[in-house]
């Protein structure tokens, strides 16, 4: 669909932004150009709509040399989304979306229909949003408009230049999902620039990895993760995507624990405890002494029971921990403890002091961060987990027990 042939770009000051690029972007695919900043990924993409022109070499769209097309005409036939959205602040949403159809002098009613259709497609009610101005929308909504504005004139090719990188993580996730959905519905040829490998892995059909103005590796996310071409690719992909030992028994609790559990001093009263729990949205507090030595815990139920007496302190109602793990213990041990005894969390201690808390949440978060490159089936994973369980000791661990981390790692 889009073909780069020996494209080079040298700036006036002699800087070689692109060094002999040969690349084919397939029709109907979502191709992600990725690389560290300054690698030329944006520069390369802007060659497609002639915002940049090559110093030498040719670019073809559907076998037509684009240097023979008027840049303004060409750009109207290609969707374009930039990082900072760039909506026109003096036009309302309907007019912003209809920019290219208006430039192409579409019939007014057809355009209006298209605008409504696109707004609905990204779940923005046309009746509500049509007449609003960009400043009245949230960042996520603005970029949705940015994306559908690029779709308005039904271009075959859409270019997105780090479109989601300025958004908060939740909006970013949503927009990535919406983009994947739009791509599946509309089958456009999409070129997407990003520096975020997670994003690339999530959305790409093909990843083009670049460095210093050159293409280092091209392939599906799967292919690049499994067969990184060189050191640079490996380091760029990032360690967490490459960890083969997803359920590594050598993984220690320090890796997965949350280090800032909600703690309270034993001197506190009940009202203070309740307010504290409310503020941090927890249902129990870890009680630590002045030097963070672990004393025990109170649950919300104990606190409510003790509430009637004004001079009750946490020290009076707290319960000691039966199960704790020493810093450096294996995660498997902590998990087994939680599993066997139905514990919501296990404290991690170092020299008698509270070091952190292994909770279900913290374990899941850690697991989620680890990519599973071997694509193990659920059965295999279960077997793997079973194996771990056998290895882990079943007896309750005491604070001073557990010297076995040497063997385990």
């Amino acid at each position: 669909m889009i073909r780069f042939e020996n494209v080079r770009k040298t700036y006036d000051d002699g800087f070689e932004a692109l060094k002999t690029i040969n690349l084919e972007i397939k029709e109907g695919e979502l191709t992600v150009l990725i690389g560290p900043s300054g690698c030329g990924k944006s520069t390369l993409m802007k060659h497609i709509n002639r915002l940049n022109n090559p110093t030498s070499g040719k670019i073809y769209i559907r076998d037509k040399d684009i240097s023979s097309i008027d840049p303004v005409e060409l750009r109207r036939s290609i969707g374009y989304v930039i990082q900072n959205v760039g909506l026109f602040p003096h036009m309302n949403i309907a007019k912003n979306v209809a920019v290219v159809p208006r430039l192409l002098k579409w019939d007014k009613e057809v355009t209006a229909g298209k605008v409504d259709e696109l707004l609905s497609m990204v779940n923005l009610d046309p009746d509500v949003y049509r007449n609003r101005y960009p400043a009245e929308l949230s960042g996520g909504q603005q970029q949705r408009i940015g994306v559908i504005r690029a779709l308005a004139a039904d271009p075959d090719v859409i270019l997105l230049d780090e479109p989601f990188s300025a958004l908060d993580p939740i909006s970013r996730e949503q927009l990535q999902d919406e983009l994947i959905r739009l791509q599946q519905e509309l089958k456009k040829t999409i070129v997407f620039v990003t520096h975020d490998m997670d994003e690339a892995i999530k959305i790409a059909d093909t990843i083009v990895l670049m460095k210093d103005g050159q293409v280092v590796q091209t392939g599906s996310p799967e292919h690049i993760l499994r067969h990184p071409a060189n050191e640079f690719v490996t380091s760029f992909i990032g360690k967490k995507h490459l960890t083969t030992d997803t359920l590594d028994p050598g993984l220690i609790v320090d890796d997965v624990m949350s280090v800032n559990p909600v703690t309270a001093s034993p001197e506190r009263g009940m009202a203070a405890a309740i307010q504290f729990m409310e503020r941090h949205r927890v249902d129990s507090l870890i009680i630590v002494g002045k030097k963070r030595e672990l004393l025990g815990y109170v649950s919300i139920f104990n606190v409510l029971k003790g509430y009637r007496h004004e001079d009750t302190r946490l020290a009076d109602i707290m319960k000691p921990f039966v199960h704790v793990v020493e810093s450096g213990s294996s995660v498997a041990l902590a998990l087994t403890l939680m599993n066997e005894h139905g514990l919501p969390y296990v404290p991690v201690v170092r020299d008698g002091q509270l070091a952190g808390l292994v909770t279900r949440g913290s374990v899941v978060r850690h697991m989620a961060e680890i990519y599973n490159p071997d694509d193990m089936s659920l059965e295999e994973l279960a077997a793997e987990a079973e194996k771990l369980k056998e290895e882990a000791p079943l007896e309750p661990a005491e604070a001073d027990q557990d010297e076995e981390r040497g063997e385990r790692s």
Partner: protein
Amino acid sequence: MMEWLSDYGAFLTSRQEDILIALRDHIYISAISIILGAIVAIPVGIWLAGSRIGWLNSTVFTVANVLQTIPSLALLAILIPLLGIGRTPAVFALFLYSIMPIMRNTYSGFKAVDPNVMEAARGMGYSRLQRLLRIQLPLSFPYIMSGLRVTTVYIISWATLATLIGAGGLGQLIFSGLGVNKKELIVTGAILAVILALAADFLLGLAERWVTAKTRSTPASGTV
């Protein structure tokens, strides 16, 4: 007090013709200077905002700044040997004074347009002229208008000096009042100049709001 007012009323009636002529001349001189200033300064401001030639920008702004600082009496005096006396040198002097603020505001307005907006416009296929007319001008319009309003107010006030080189206007009332020690003339000239400045500012404000409302509520004009 009452007596003075009725005397003043009688004076106004008796000198009505002179006063109206002075007012007309004043409006004429100010309007021509500002219109000429806008015609020159707005395009120059736009052009400078788009130019990447650093030394040229600073030169133009320096020259305009220097023009601004020449004392008005001195400038009028300098212009007499060049352009003689009468309306022409007066209009020319006021025109020179109007350039700087209008140009400065136009320049700032264009510089204030979000570069992302411009990149989006370019990337979506606006031609250069379309970007100018549909994006840059509407977005910098408030800046340009505020430049025009400021300029108008003080050009109207400075135009009272034009009478010194025989251009007439409200200044003539004031200076004749000084000459014959007639307070009514001085007061009339000054008050009319103030009212004229306020009225012009008010009308330009109305025009600005009207244009802004119009560009906001209807689709931007057809393809250029």
